[in-house]
Each structure stands twice: as structure tokens, then as C-alpha cells.
């Protein structure tokens, strides 16, 4: 128990190193399915096969080619019992052949050919269960191609099954995943949020200044917000797509500086109505700049080419959802704040100064490398 206690304490102390020692125990699985014909290959580390089925018959800790060759029926049986493929309602046949050796970064691997036959149509189901019962850290990395559509999948103890249903392979998964990325980005992107806040305040205060009846104020405010948000959305969608497709490219520093400037200008507009009633054209113009900022983030995500369209669409939808939630959340707060004259004045001055100041600090920092704080 004392030894165990020391081990537990040691791992606490040394965890950064332990996490650095990462997996050499992945297998690589390449599978193509063309009109029902299955072909591909599987690579499993020799060390993993030793653990799974035992190769070292003479127990001298050295694995020879002879030991692997003699174990080939056991290897084939193991693979067949742990990888199951079916299409429609029919189980596919799957066999291995041609054992060979390949030296990969994680050490020597046994590589084998895979072939078989599936039904010609229907959803493809794949169950992968190599090694999980004896090594929970094992991962199976699979490149799967079904009738021309391809994707990469990671099999783990928590994720041993995969069903591929036509187009779902390459479109819906990244789409859904990138909606989350888009929402996350706008929520953590404080510059985008401040710009939206300043623009919303500008719209609300402008209608207060120019309209006298309550109905007129809220009708025009609502309409102006819809126009402003739509223009911003449309504009940043355009540049996000153009920049992501590398049709138009701008230096990141220039874009980030311009975004900071947009925050400053929109904050000034709260105090001095420089945009007049033209909030939506201004939002459109600045939206073009913010779109390049979103594209920089998306570019960092290193999208696979085959998943680019879905990922781009998903990211954009996510940004819009995140933006809508922010706008809907801010409107009632702003309505309350500007309801009374004293709070309206206070909100106007404080928010304008605070947003302008933050924007100016970003502008100096991003544009000229001047860090004030």
C-alpha cells in the first residue's frame, strides 16, 4: 500500500510528463467499398498483437518473422472476430491476406490486406473492437471510402460503432460540429460582441432622438435592428466565404486592427450620432471586415478539403445563432436602460466611453503594438 501511495503521489507530481508519453498503440485501418466489393488494409503494431493474442511462443522477448507467420491464422481469426462489417441487413464477408511488415513511427507493424463482399446498397455499419478489452488507450484510426465518399474516423472504447448512411458521411457531421465552433467563437469574441452592442445602442438611441411617440419608437427601433443585424450578417457571410475559399485574402493584423477601429467608431456613434439613420449600411461595411476576422479563425481549424463546404456552412450558421442569442438577450436590457431619461443618459455616456476606450486600446495594440495596460 505504501508503494502504491508513493506511485499515486509520483503520478500527481509527474503528470505533465506522463501525458507527454502518447500513443504508439494506434492501429490504422483503410477500407474501400465500391459497389459491394470490400478492399483495404489494416496495420497493427507487433507489440499490440503480442498483447492481444501472444506471438512470443518461446518467450525470449524477441519477435521473429517466423513467429508472426505461424500466428497468421490466429491473427486472421482475431481480426475477423473484432471487426464486423454489414450493409443493409446483411453481414459482409471480410478476410485478411498477405501479412507483411511496415516500419512506422510507433515501431514495427504487421500489415495485412482486407477483402470481402457486402450488399451493393444500404447503410454501412462497422464495429471495431481490436484490443479495447485489454488496452483502453488503444485507438483505431480508419480511413473509409464508400462509393467515392471518404472520411476519417477514430474508434475508441467509447466509440466502437459507426453507421454510414450515404451523404451523412461527409456532410452532416462536420456541419453540426462547426455550428458549435461558430457559436463558441462569437461568444468568446468580445470585439464582435462590443461592436454589436455599440451598434444596437446607436440604433435605439437614434430612434429615441428622432421619434416622440412610444409606438413609433419601438416600431422603428425593431425595424432598424432587423435591418442592421441582417446587413451585418450578410456582409460578414460574404467575406467569410470569400476569405475561406482564398478568393480574397487580407493580412490578419490589418483585419484585427480594422475590427478594433469599428468598435471605436461605433462607440463614438453612441455619443455623437455620426451614422445618422444609416446604421445598416455602416453595419454592412464593418460586417465585411468582421467576416475576415471569422475567416482567420476558421482557417486555423485546418479543415479537410472534403468537409470544407459543410464546415464553412456550419461555422457561419453557428456565428448567426450565437449573434442572434446575443441580440435577443441585449434588447430587453437596453429597453430597460433607456426607459428613463437619467438611465438613458448614464447608459449613453458610460457605455460609449467604456466601449471606445477598450476599442482604442485594441486599436493601438493590434495596429501599432502599443500595449497600454
Amino acid at each position, binding site marked *: *500500500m505504501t508503494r*502504491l501511495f508513493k*506511485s*499515486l*503521489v509520483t*503520478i*500527481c*507530481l*509527474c*503528470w505533465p*510528463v*506522463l*501525458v*507527454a*508519453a*502518447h*500513443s*504508439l498503440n*494506434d492501429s490504422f485501418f483503410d477500407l474501400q467499398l465500391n459497389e459491394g466489393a470490400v478492399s483495404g488494409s489494416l496495420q497493427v503494431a*507487433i*507489440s*499490440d498483437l*503480442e*498483447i*492481444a493474442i*501472444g506471438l*512470443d511462443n518461446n518467450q525470449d*522477448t*524477441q*519477435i*521473429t*518473422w*517466423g513467429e508472426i*507467420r505461424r500466428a497468421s491464422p490466429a491473427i486472421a481469426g482475431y481480426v475477423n472476430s473484432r471487426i464486423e462489417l454489414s450493409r443493409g441487413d446483411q453481414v459482409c464477408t471480410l478476410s485478411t491476406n498477405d501479412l*507483411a*511488415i*511496415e*516500419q*512506422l*513511427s*510507433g*515501431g*514495427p507493424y504487421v*500489415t495485412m490486406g482486407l477483402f470481402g463482399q457486402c450488399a451493393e446498397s444500404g447503410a454501412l455499419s462497422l464495429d471495431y473492437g481490436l484490443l479495447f*478489452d*485489454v*488496452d*483502453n*488507450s*488503444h*485507438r483505431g484510426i480508419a480511413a473509409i471510402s464508400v462509393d467515392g465518399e471518404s472520411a*476519417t474516423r*477514430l474508434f475508441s472504447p467509447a466509440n466502437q460503432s459507426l453507421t454510414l448512411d450515404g451523404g451523412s458521411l461527409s456532410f452532416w457531421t462536420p456541419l453540426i460540429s462547426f455550428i458549435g465552433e461558430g457559436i463558441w467563437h462569437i461568444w468568446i469574441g*468580445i470585439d464582435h460582441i462590443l461592436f454589436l452592442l455599440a451598434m444596437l445602442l446607436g440604433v435605439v438611441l437614434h430612434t429615441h432622438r428622432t421619434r416622440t411617440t412610444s409606438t413609433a419608437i419601438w416600431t422603428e427601433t425593431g425595424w432598424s435592428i432587423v435591418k442592421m443585424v441582417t446587413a451585418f450578417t450578410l456582409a460578414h457571410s460574404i467575406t467569410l466565404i470569400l476569405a475561406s475559399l482564398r478568393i480574397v485574402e487580407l493580412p490578419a*493584423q490589418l483585419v*484585427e486592427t480594422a475590427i478594433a477601429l469599428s468598435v471605436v467608431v461605433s462607440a463614438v456613434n453612441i455619443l455623437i450620432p455620426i451614422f445618422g439613420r444609416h446604421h445598416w449600411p455602416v453595419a454592412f461595411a464593418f460586417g465585411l471586415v468582421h467576416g475576415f476576422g471569422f475567416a*482567420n479563425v476558421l482557417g*486555423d481549424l*485546418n479543415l479537410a478539403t472534403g468537409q470544407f463546404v459543410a464546415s464553412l456552412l456550419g461555422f457561419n450558421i453557428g456565428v448567426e445563432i450565437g449573434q442572434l442569442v446575443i441580440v435577443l438577450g441585449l434588447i430587453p436590457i437596453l429597453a430597460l436602460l433607456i426607459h428613463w431619461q437619467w438611465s438613458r443618459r448614464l447608459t449613453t455616456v458610460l457605455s460609449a466611453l467604456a466601449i471606445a476606450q477598450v476599442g482604442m486600446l485594441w486599436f493601438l495594440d493590434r495596429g501599432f503594438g502599443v*500595449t497600454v495596460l
Partner: protein
Amino acid sequence: MMKKTTTDESKKLLLFQTVILLVIFIVFLSETRADSFVPQSDDQVLLTLSPAVTAIARSVRAQERSLESNNAGNAATQYSSRELAAAISEAYTLATRNNDPRAFGHTLSLINAWPQQQPKPAMVRLIHASVLQHSHEFMAALQQLDTVLSNDPANLQARLIYSQVSLVIGDYEAVAQQCQAIEAAGVQIYALNCGAQLQSITGNAEFALSAVEETLLARPTNATQQIELLLNAATTAERLGFADRAERYYRRVLSMNPQSLFTTLRLSAFLLHQSRPEAAIELLRPYANSANDLEAQILLVRALQGAGMPVNAELLASIGAEIESLQRLGDEAPHKLLAQYQLYIAEDFATAVRSATLNWKLQKEPGDTLLLASAAVASEQSQTQEQVRAWITKTGLQDARIQTVLSAQEVL
């Protein structure tokens, strides 16, 4: 150390980076496209098994034999709980001793085989928590520890692991609670170290260092406790910028435990930050060919480059191949290692920031924050730099390295 470059220096850097990437690409390409081969002779030795793999295979065969002899028709009857607990303990000891990912995975497989109808002993849950911590599943680890502590609030091991996990994820309130509980249990050395670890990253680093140094001088401690205290002192002194003291403490730990990869890595990184790459090379050379120690290899490349010495193409290729393999793990990839590689070797700064940010979402130790700050400065991402500044303001973290990075816009 790499300063913001002038235009000429930028060109040189770009050229250097291109050459390195080209070498990696060519070697990696030749590596990956090397056809598989069929050995000519049955006697050809393809692999000498590592002690860890041999031991895991032995454990698996024993499990299979037990299953066969117990009851071939009843799959639920595997090990008895006692046998299983012993196997788990043995597998975990093997994993920590060999730092072998397969051994950690095997330990987890054995834990998962625990019969559902039988309650898990505290020892199994503690091991489970430690293995989950190892695989970055911090919340799941804390759940195991909560279960142990709800049954046995005085369990010291659980409190110690809890405090370490909470330190990693930056939950300093939880750390403070655990330190208090450890103190209440009357284990003064552990309580002091726990408190000092927390204080050293929340604005009281000088006080924490003094407390640890006084303890080292005044109180009798066993070797494990001494190593803990010395490491705490070394890392705190390093963050405070007390280079002489930091090096002295690191070297004392290393003399007590020469095999400690953790200490070797920390000391090497410290020497690199002190612009002493030659001394770091001396420490890291033994790890040049160890595919299991990627962080050491990345540090070695940085040290060689810092010393103006040639970097072995095979080493670069090996690192590149391993990184390529890790990237395939997607969300499960070790983002810290990827960020280090992208920042210091590939010099792909934008991607490095992304990896460092993903890592920082998971773990917020000073080293993780330093990595994030360096990547943010290299890629000139002011928002991320502000994020780091906000964290420092919030926590009171004192770290001379991070301050240098942020104020002088230098990458460490």
C-alpha cells in the same frame, strides 16, 4: 529565445524554416511511402519487446487462463475481486514505472472489468482517478475522488490527488479546500506543500518559497516528501526569476532521482530559458532516440537550434511522423505537444495558438499559460494575450517568464 525580427531576419528565419520543413517532408515522405516488406527469413528478429509489453501480455494470458479454468461457460466469472484488485495495482505500478501508454490503457481495461454488482474499493477508485488524470479526463477523475471522499473523508491520497487535479484545471478554491482538509488530518508536510503550491501561483510566491525552504532546512522528511518540496521550490523560484536557486533545487531532485524524466524536462526547459542550450543538450541527449518521449525530443531540437548545432534529420523526421500520427487523433490529440511542435519547430504560429488554446481549456498550469502566451505573441494575436493577462490579474500568478513574453513580446 527568438526576438521579433527585422525584415532580413524574417527572411532568414523563413528560409531556415522552409529548409527544415522540406527535410521533414522529404524524410517523412520516404518513410511513409517505404513499401511494406516480407522478411526473407523466419529467423529475422523484428522487435525486442519492451518490459512493459511483456508484462501486459503476461497479465492478459493470466486473465485468459483464469477465465478458462474458472468456468468456460460463464463469461461473467473472471478474476475474483481480490485477484482483479491485485492485477489493477500491478498494472498501475507497471504503468508509472515505465511511463508506458499501453500499461495505462491496460490498467483502465482491468478497472472497467470490475463486476458491476460489487463496490469498488477505495484503492481501485484512486488508481482509476490517477489514470483518468493521466488521460486528461479531469472531471471524471474528480468524480472518482468524490466517491472515495464521501465514504472516507479522511482519505489522504484522495485529497492529495484532488488538490493536484484541481491545480491543473485552475480550480483554486477546490485546492484550498483540500489543503485545509489535509491540514486538519494532521499531515503537516503534505499540508504545507499543498498550501505552498497554491500560494506560489496565486500571488504569494515569495512567502510560499520561504515556507518550503524553511521546511526543507528544519524538518525531517523522507525522500518522497523531499522531492516534492524541492520540485515545488524549484518551480516557484524559477517563476520568481531566482535562477540560481531554481537550478540548485532542480539538480538536487535529479541527483536524488536521476531517472526522473519530469525533472529532466523541467530543468532542460529552465536552462533553455536561461539561454544555456548546451547544458540542456547534455541532459536531453539520452532521449534522442526514444519515440516515447516526444516532449524531450522537441526540447532537444530547440536546444540544438539554440546552440547553433546541426539537427539530425532522422530526429526531425521521427518527431514529424509522431506528430502526424497524433494529429490523426483529432479531439483526443495531446494539444500541448502539438502546440510545442507547431510553435518551436514548424513555426506555424497560427496553428500553435489554436493548439495552445485547446490545451489551456483543459489545463491551466503556469507552463500551459506560458505556452499560450508565447504562441499568442508569436502569432501576434492580441486577444489571446489579453486572455492571458486577464488570467494573471484574476489569479495573481507571478511568473517572470510570462511577463517577459508579454511585455517584451519575446517567445520563450
